[in-house]
Structures are given as C-alpha cells and as structure tokens.
C-alpha cells in the first residue's frame, strides 16, 4: 500500500490536533489540549482504485519561543498549514513556517486551512491578505473541525494530488 507522510503545521491553538481527531476518529472536543512534541496517526483512504495510507504528523504548534522543527518534515509528501480564522496573527505564523519548510524540503503540495469556519462572525483575516497569498501560489480551504465542514474533502484532495 502506498504511504504518504503529511505534516500539520501552524501556530499553537489553531486546531491541528482537532482536525486530525475529526478526520481520523470523527470526534471533536471544545476543550483545548496543547500538543507537545509529535503525534502520529494513520488513515487509509481510497484514491481512484488505489488505497493510500496517510501518515499524519501532528506537530506541536509554533509559539514565540519555540519554532517548528522543520527537520521533522523530512520525507513529507505534503503538508497542511493551519490558520485560526479568528486570529489574524496565525496567518503570518503560517506564512513564516511555509517559507522555512520550503527551504528545508523544497516545493511539495500544501493547502492552507482557514480553520474554525464555524466562528465566521468572529473572523478577522483581511481578505486582501488572503488574496495576496493566493497570488503567491497558496491554495486556501475553509474548514471546521467542530462541524467537520471541509475536513474530509481537504485531506482527500491533498491525497489525490500526492497519489498522482
């Protein structure tokens, strides 16, 4: 079976672990539990006629004192940059991580997830900033780990790209 390593990256508290739990275990909790180090999960899905195993690396979020260890991304076939739509600063953290990842492992497929889409009324990301990043080649998807909106579709879309 084809295996693909996918890393979830972003600032702390953006919902990386919740997205994995929603995608792999179909569960969600409102309680915030921080991630230290790395959690590995595996999800098998079918792409076309082929089964693909996604090895999901849920890597501890970046904060002011601890940067993401980009060396953990070695061998990653793709990655997801997770952004909290209610915290504009997390988009800038994602942009910073993306440039470091690109330097470490080169250009591999990735999506930027505007997570917490269920809190639309609290969203504070300037549309022009999103447009600028899209112009730079980013692909955005809106997700909600709470409702599940966009989660399965996004992972499946990335898997389809990686399986080509």
């Amino acid at each position, binding site marked *: 079976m084809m*295996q693909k390593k996918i890393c979830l990256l972003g600032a702390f*508290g953006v919902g990386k672990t919740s997205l994995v739990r929603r995608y792999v275990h179909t569960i969600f909790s409102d309680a*915030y539990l921080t991630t*230290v*180090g*790395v959690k*590995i999960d595996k999800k098998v899905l079918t792409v076309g006629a082929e089964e693909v195993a996604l090895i999901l690396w849920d890597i501890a979020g970046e904060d002011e004192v601890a940067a993401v260890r980009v060396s*953990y991304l*070695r061998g990653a076939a793709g990655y997801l940059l997770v952004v909290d739509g209610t915290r504009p600063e997390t988009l800038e953290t994602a942009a910073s991580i993306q440039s470091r990842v690109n330097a470490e492992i080169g250009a591999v497929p990735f999506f930027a997830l505007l997570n917490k889409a269920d809190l639309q009324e609290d969203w504070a990301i300037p549309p022009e900033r999103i447009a600028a990043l899209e112009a730079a080649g980013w692909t955005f998807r809106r997700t909600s780990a709470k409702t599940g909106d966009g989660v399965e579709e996004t992972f499946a879309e990335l898997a389809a790209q990686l399986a080509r």
Partner: protein
Amino acid sequence: MLDLPPRISDSLLMLLHAQRVLAHLVIDDAQNLVQAGGHLEHYGLDGLQSGGPASDQIPFLEGLLPLVETPFLIRSMEMPSGRVADIHFFADDGTVWVLLLDVTAEYEEARLVQQKAYDMTLLSQREARLIAQLESANQELTRAHGELAASRETLQLTHDRLQQELRDAERYVRAMLPAPVSEPLAVDWRFVPSTELGGDSFGYHWIDDEHFALYLIDVCGHGVGSALLSVAVADTLRSEALARTDFHNPAEVLAALNLAYQMESHGELFCTVWYGVYHRATGRLRYASAGHPPAILVSGPCDAIGDGLPLPASGPCVGISPAARYQDEQCMLPSPARLFVFSDGAYEITRPDGSMLDYAAFAEILTRPVREGQSELDGVLEYARNVHGPGALEDDFTIIRMAL
C-alpha cells in the same frame, strides 16, 4: 567523551536503561527491519516482524530513511501505547539504529506548563481583540455622536427658522382678523390657536348700511395648511368674492363657498362654517351652518342669569360634496342680548380625568351673570382653561360675542 572507568560507564548505562525503558530497532540499508529489542511492548511496538519494510510496521519511519543527518532526534513522540518517547536515530555501518527512551514524565510536566502558558496567551490575545473591537466601536460611536450633534444643530437651526416663519405667519393671520368694535354693535372675540397656526378664522363686516355679516370658519386639523385655507375662506367672505352670490343670503353664500372650496382641489381639507346676517332695522338674524356647532343667543342683561337659546341649523361641511345644500334659518334678536358664535374647540375640552366638557354645559356657562368690570369672554376662556388644566388646549379656541 568522558574518560570513565568501564564499571562507571556500565553503571550509567544500566541507570539509563532502567529509567528510560530502552527499546531499539535496527534497520538495514534496504530499509528493512532486521532487529528489534528492549522494552518494545512498553511503547506498543511488540509483535514486530524482522525482514519486511520497516515503515510498513512503524509508521513514523515513513520518509525519514535513509538518514540525512546522524545522530537525529525526534523529541516527545506519543507512541501507540500512550507512552511518550524521545526517538534517537544513529547511522552505524550501513544500518540505522533507532533508540526509544521514555520521557513520559517530562512530557506531562512540559504539557502542563505549556497548557497553562497557551491558555493565558489565548486569553490575553482574545482580550486584546475585544479591547480593539471596543475601541473601534467607541470610535464609531464618537464619530456617530459627532455627526448626530452636527445634524441636531442643523435641525435646531431649521426648527428655529421654521418657528420664526410660523410666528411671522401667525402675526399675519392675526393681522387679518377684524378688530373688536363697539358701535353700533359691540363685537368682541377671543382666538387661541392650539399650535402656532390654527385652523380657525373669522370675520365680520357691514354688507351695507343695514346688514351686518358675521362668520366663523373651522378647517379640519391645524398647522400651516389648515391656516392657509381658513384665511383664504375668511378673505373670500370678507371681500365678498363669490360671483353671482347675494351675501345677504346665508344659504346661498355657503352653497357658493362649498362649490369654490371642494377638498380635492384644496389639499383634501374641508371646514365648518357659520355665516349669519343681522338686519339692524328689524333685529332679524338670518343664518346658515355648514356642519358648525349651533350659535347661542343669550337674552337678558349681562348682570343677571340669561336665557340661553341654541340656534340650530343643518348643513354638511364645506368642501366634502358639490351637491351639498344649505338652508336659511332666522330669528329675532331681542335687546339686551348676546349672540355667541364659536368653534367646537371652545367647548370640546378634555378634563384631566379624561372626561369632556359638553355643549350643554358650555351653553350654561354663557348664561351666567357677568360681574361689573369683568370681561365676559376672558371669563369664558379662563373657564375653558380651568376645565382643561395645565398645558395648551388641544384644539383652537375661538368665540365671537355680538352684544345688542
């Protein structure tokens, strides 16, 4: 490296082995698992089979082999058993050694500290966002308040200008009213509009040497529109500006007035009109009414209780229908006597308890004796104000008194 005696080195290794629950994997250059040992079950990795691709059995190895750097460390990886391990990678002569050292205790400690720190940070970020939103809302409010103050000032200026124009108009309307006369007939009046401009107007004049016309108009509503129509109707009567109309004949006057002031061409306004003509030589009063309250004739001297007599007349309001017909009524005015013509605002007065003064009670007031030196009309107005209580009267108060 420390140059330690073998016994001490061995002791340190034993200590590490005991505290860190050591497990190891060995992977060859074809990335097949060739050896696994130590406390694999502690990490949930028991049951591994040598010989096959390592990453098929151990997912976290996917993509990491061959090693790019050695040694290589992945800190605090949560293992299938729930334990947390530091994963150390070492390249050694064509093979890769992977050592797992338990750091669950340190992980839990770090997680608690980090959880607290992130919770605090998220709270303070949320607080900062709320403060920013509040400041933004406050700025918006301040701006809106400023705009409101500016528009209120503009509104006040406009209001003041309109008030001034209304006062000018009121002065003009009052100037159009006839002055009280004392000879040969004594005619006096009181006019208190409920707003700056009322819907009441009136007049009186000699048609010829023998005939004295007296009239009162009450246009529905109040304000500029009603006042304009009221003044126009009064001016029409004063100037006798109705073609082919005998102004000695009240019913004919009202019929002509009705045709001239149909409501569809006068702002949907209509009015009540009382029109009477007194013939001095005979003492006969001819009158007609277009929906107006009956005038009251009070016979007898002023200083005694008089004999009050309503002067009924029927006819529809002016302006409602061009087919309206009016009828002359007549009566003889004795002497001494007072004729009172008034609008409904003179007696339809609401008391503070919500009840209303009625026509009969008002008629009775007019029959009361008047003390010497007292103005009868002032007394009637004062009575109306006392009935109403504090504040302006709801409707125009107009009363004309003709004394014989």
